[in-house]
């Protein structure tokens, strides 16, 4: 009788414990951004898809310093993390997160947009316009635009926590214009909001390029969010890229997110060399 009980208990224990049931390889997925932003949404969606193949531990690092520390602590294990290209270029705390052929999975390429409430008539060159923005690098960019515009009266730049707050500020009339690095939140509210100028030199969904109003260093710069790895050899990285491509090609929360991200593109289907070239280009342009 005792034997039967022991056998049943052992079976239950083994089934309940993923370590015994199937020895999956450990993978640390690290969100280097805030918990309330789109980085968390994207990385959580990756976790949901990757946990069938890996023993995933999801870590909220909330910044570059902690991300670096965690990557050091998990050296020898596999890690998959997200890094904002503009920060890798401009923020010394993030300068080690540079995309290379050894670490790149893919990048999310996007172009910023200036937007306003539908029907609003705004003249940036006349000035006196309140512009909502988020993140410190965007402040530098807005100042460059401002000096290139030479507006009659200065425009006011209003700093918000994230792109959601920027969109909300324009929606509730707190500011006249908003600037965001990525457009899905603008297009999601297309019944209330309209793009004014896009940083994409070819324009975006009928929104004219900013170059058509003013040209300056950065007026047509795109940005990338880079998806990078640590602890993968060349073959493993190629296999991992294939797994990520499969996730993007399957119906799930992640592929739905990127499909809805109008005006943006991902480089996962490109050969690794091309993906590195694009990622490095969009990091390096911000270094000047």
């Amino acid at each position, binding site marked *: 009788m005792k034997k039967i009980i022991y056998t049943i208990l052992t079976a239950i224990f083994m089934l309940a414990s993923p370590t015994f049931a199937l020895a999956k390889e450990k993978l640390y997925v690290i969100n280097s951004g805030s918990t*309330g932003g789109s980085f968390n949404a994207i990385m*959580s969606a990756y976790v949901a898809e990757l946990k069938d193949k890996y023993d995933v*531990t999801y870590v*909220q690092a909330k910044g570059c*310093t902690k991300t670096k520390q965690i990557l050091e602590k998990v050296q020898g294990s596999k890690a998959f993390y997200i890094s904002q290209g503009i920060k890798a270029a401009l923020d010394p705390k993030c300068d080690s997160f540079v995309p290379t052929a050894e670490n790149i999975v893919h990048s999310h390429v996007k172009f910023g947009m200036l937007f306003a409430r539908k029907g609003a008539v705004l003249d940036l060159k006349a000035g006196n316009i309140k512009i909502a923005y988020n993140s410190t690098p965007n402040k530098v960019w807005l100042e460059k635009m401002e000096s290139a515009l030479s507006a009659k009266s200065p425009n006011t730049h209003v*700093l*918000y*926590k994230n792109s*959601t707050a920027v969109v909300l500020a324009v929606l509730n009339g707190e500011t006249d214009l908003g600037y965001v690095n990525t457009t899905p939140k603008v297009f999601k509210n297309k019944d209330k909001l309209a793009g004014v100028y896009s940083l994409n030199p070819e324009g975006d969904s009928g929104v004219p390029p900013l170059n058509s109003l003013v040209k300056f260093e950065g007026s047509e710069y795109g940005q990338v969010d880079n998806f990078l790895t640590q602890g993968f050899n060349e073959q493993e990285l190629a296999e991992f890229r294939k797994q990520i491509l499969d996730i993007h090609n399957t119906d799930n929360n992640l592929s739905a997110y990127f499909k809805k991200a109008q005006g943006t593109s991902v480089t996962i289907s490109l050969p690794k060399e091309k993906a590195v070239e694009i990622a490095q280009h969009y990091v390096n342009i911000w270094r000047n």
Partner: protein
Amino acid sequence: MIDLLPYALMGIGFGVIAGFVPGIGIFATLMILYPFLMDFTGLELVAFYVGISSTTQYIGSITATVFALPGESSSLPSVKEGHALYKQGQGSFAISGAAIGSFVGSLFVLLITSLFVLELENLYYLYSSYIQAIIISLVLCFLILSSKSKIYAVFLVFIGYILGSVGCRIIDEKCFATFDNGDLETGLPLISVLLALYVVPIVLNNWNLKFDYTGVDIKSERFTVHLKKYIDNIGASLRGTLIGFFAGFTPGLSTAMSSNLSYAVEKWIQRKKYKEGNYKALVSAETGNNAGAFACLLPLLVLGIPIVPSEALLYEMAVAKGFSLGGENFNVEFFNTVAYMLVFVNLIALFIAWPFAKYICYLGKLNYKQIQGLILIAFIFIIGYVGSELFQSTYYLIVFFLLLPVGILLRKHDTLPLVFAFIVADRIATVSIPLENLIFN
């Protein structure tokens, strides 16, 4: 929706324990279950929370009525009126009145709110920095003014704000008191701070409470007799619903405000007729309590603003899973999911809290002091576990143990102003920076 029911059921199960044992409450229960809950998705967490938060309101009145122990301050009217009825041999009516009242209160406010759900969806778009600043200021003023010592409360708010400001802010990436330490840059951990300064003082305050199980007897009557008694007093229940709903928005106090205000108004209405062991006052307070519990959830679900500590913990857990509550994520579909869940949970809780009340009372046979001791030890392991998930277990434990003496010193005081200021510190920066830009530029 159906796939969420098991999570709501689990919430109900733990809600029975959290509601029965005084001083444990929802926050401590969520903490104890943290390692287990982190396997849930965001929506499953919400289902669990709806289960636990609604059920505790039902069960708390049993503990109050039978054992005269207030599970939380919202149960004080039940201790006074319910226990008096119990001593008069009317315990089953006190329990059924509280349970039916709670059920009616919950469903009534749910129905009314569902009529305005489209307006609620658009409410977010009116949520400007000015309105946010007004709300936060009002809340802090209210917490200070409702404290026994206003100066002391101001001091606690200041300390809470300073603690909450440690770390690097997302909005402008400015860091405060981080000393180039990667751990400090992520801020002081919510769990360590809230356990040391909020939960431990409550547990210590309830340390000497005892269940006296000897002679527990709940005489039962026919279902229709109970129902008739409730219907005869339904006016008090409906008054409690309305008062409780609006009072439930009171940050920090929420259900305590709902039940005590409904109770006070009902007593005032009866004035000379009032005698201790008053069924109407009890039903009004309990109905108000549950209406308040729903109202308390709304700011979190609609705007993403937690107004009680357990909601702050739920919010943190949900965002860690990539699930943002409130704001642009609030929509009719989400509301309906929560609404169906609430109906289901309230129905089950009604049955547990009324016909099965005497079985719930068996929990009174447990050695409560031992349970409290175990819970305090469990907290230490859980802090370590949660920290280890972020490679910060030492940091989490150091913060907890550094703040613990402060929590012990403050055990006789209400630490809610401190806790609330800690929770909203980041939000204050998030609102004040754009306002500064808008006003001074």
